[in-house]
């Protein structure tokens, strides 16, 4: 109810602000409106600066119909008072909303959300579906529960943990379904979290008319609770062929292999955010988006309507969509990292796994003792290049117990960790890393020293004898060079 103020309050205001004494203010305020009235009668309009314009507008006689009886009758002509506030007054009154601006709406702007809101308010006004709404809320709570741990896990933990969490949540959802018997709302919202959870609880899959999924069509029709569940899975399938395996696997295995299916489903989840978005779309039937394919949506709504489903508010939806996207991206990145680790690292960097390389390694090992006739050099500098190489050379032994020929190599390392190692190990490592050609190139006997000629530098020397720049530091150490950039003409350099 509006609070009414009277002219007295206005005069109080004047008195309080010290513009006039009580008597003056009273007479002034009373006189003010009287004069406005008087002026209206005299001139038909009164213009007051800072307030606005009062005008008398004459309304001509017109005919109307009594809505109850249908009789026609005359409305006699009369005059009415119109008031138009001054711009200054308008602005003052509109102060609270002054920061709003008119916005141009583009073609793409989706106004259906407005309609959705209208619809919802209408529904609320009508007072129908109140229990339904409650269900919806509880479902949202459930959804929240699933949402949070998943997000946290995805943010901090490796993939496996996430899957477990998802699986656990799925199980929890199932329980919830069974216990509370909230058929549609809980069923749709819970699994809506991600396809992983969507796929796992599909124990009673109903045969939605989706030809893509033969597995699902064989399942019983009975459970209305599960009706929305296949739909999250199926759009994903439509969009990615790979995910077709998911349901075919998940449907027969059901709960037996939840983690496996969860894993794959997660992939799908990561690769197809639009599909997910689309699923979200189905849930909030009210707000369609341009991305969504049209035909599946029709079936989806069909399937949802019998279950008497109420949609969710749109802001929540978009928020969750963003979350799902983030989780998906994180999982994808993690998965990629894992894949590249296992596939890439071992294949490329582990020397043992390249077939034929071992043989070179062995050959080299056999060659080395003969080749290492070079004078003994100080031990200290040799250690450093030797140690990093020792690890990869030790690894093949560990991984390949068959190749007994390699045994001497690690054995010899502890025995003679001195100068010979320095010469032997880098060479061995090099063989290991660069296959055949390098091995052949360096196999011919190389001189123990190099006399520096004009135009030589350490890199050239290193390249000449070893075929790579890797041995520059070794040369520097071996010769106790202070400054690697200046080597003098005629200088004799020992070669590692």
């Amino acid at each position, binding site marked *: 109810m509006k609070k009414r103020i009277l002219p007295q309050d206005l005069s109080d205001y004047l008195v309080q602000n010290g513009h006039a004494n009580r008597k003056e203010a009273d007479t002034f305020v009373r*006189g003010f*409106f009287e004069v406005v009235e008087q002026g209206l009668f005299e001139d038909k309009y009164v213009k007051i600066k800072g307030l606005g314009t009062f005008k008398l507008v004459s309304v001509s006689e017109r005919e109307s119909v009594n809505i109850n009886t249908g009789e026609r009758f005359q409305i006699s002509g009369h005059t009415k008072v119109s*008031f138009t506030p001054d711009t200054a007054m308008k602005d003052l009154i*509109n102060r609270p909303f002054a920061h709003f*601006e008119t916005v141009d*709406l583009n073609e793409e702007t989706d106004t259906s959300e407005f309609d959705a809101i209208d619809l919802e308010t209408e529904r609320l006004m009508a007072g129908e579906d109140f229990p339904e709404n409650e269900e919806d809320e509880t479902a949202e709570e459930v959804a929240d529960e699933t949402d949070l741990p998943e997000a946290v896990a995805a943010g901090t933990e490796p993939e496996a943990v996430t899957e477990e969490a998802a699986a656990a949540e799925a199980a929890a959802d199932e329980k919830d379904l069974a216990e509370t018997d909230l058929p549609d709302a809980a069923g749709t919202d819970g699994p809506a979290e991600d396809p992983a959870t969507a796929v796992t609880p599909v124990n009673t899959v109903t045969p939605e008319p989706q030809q893509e999924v033969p597995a699902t069509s064989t399942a019983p029709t009975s459970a209305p609770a599960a009706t929305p569940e296949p739909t999250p899975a199926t759009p994903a399938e439509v969009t990615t062929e790979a995910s077709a395996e998911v349901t075919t696997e998940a449907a027969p295995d059901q709960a037996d292999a939840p983690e496996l299916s969860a894993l794959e489903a997660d992939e799908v989840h990561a690769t197809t955010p639009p599909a997910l978005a689309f699923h979200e779309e189905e849930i909030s039937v009210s707000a369609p988006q341009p991305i969504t394919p049209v035909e599946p949506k029709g079936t989806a709504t069909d399937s949802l309507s019998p279950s008497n489903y109420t949609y969710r508010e749109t802001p929540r939806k978009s928020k969750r969509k963003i979350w799902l996207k983030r989780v998906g991206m994180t999982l994808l990145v993690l998965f990629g990292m894992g894949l590249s680790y296992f596939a890439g690292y071992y294949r490329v960097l582990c020397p043992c796994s390249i077939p034929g390389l071992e043989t070179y390694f062995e050959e080299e090992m056999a060659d080395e003792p003969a080749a290492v006739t070079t004078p003994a050099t100080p031990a200290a500098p040799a250690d450093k290049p030797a140690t990093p190489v020792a690890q990869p050379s030790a690894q093949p032994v560990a991984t390949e117990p068959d190749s007994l020929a390699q045994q001497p190599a690690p054995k010899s390392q502890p025995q003679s960790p001195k100068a010979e190692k320095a010469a032997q190990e880098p060479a061995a490592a090099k063989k290991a890393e660069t296959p055949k050609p390098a091995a052949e190139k360096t196999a011919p006997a190389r001189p123990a020293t190099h006399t520096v000629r004009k135009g030589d530098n350490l890199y050239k020397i290193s390249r000449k004898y070893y075929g790579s720049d890797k041995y520059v530091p070794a040369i520097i150490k071996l010769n106790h060079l202070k400054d690697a950039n200046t080597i003098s003409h005629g200088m004799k350099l020992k070669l590692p």
Partner: protein
Amino acid sequence: MNNKDFINALAEASELPPKTVQKLATQLTAGMADILDADTSLAVQGFGVFEVKKKLERIVVNPNTRQRKLIPPKLVLSFKPSNVLKDKLK
């Protein structure tokens, strides 16, 4: 009756110098703007009611360009004459 006429008439009626009346009139309108808000109305006996109405936001379409615009909500001062005033006007 423009502002000047109004001030003069009011000065005559309230027996105050026109300058004071001008000042008071400015203060009064400022006070009205101050006091009136979305849930307050000013009822003047025998004259009418001033009240602030909230107009909801809406979408308008320019018929020529088909450009749609979202008009923000706003507060508008409206005046509704009392029945006494209406009767007098007849």
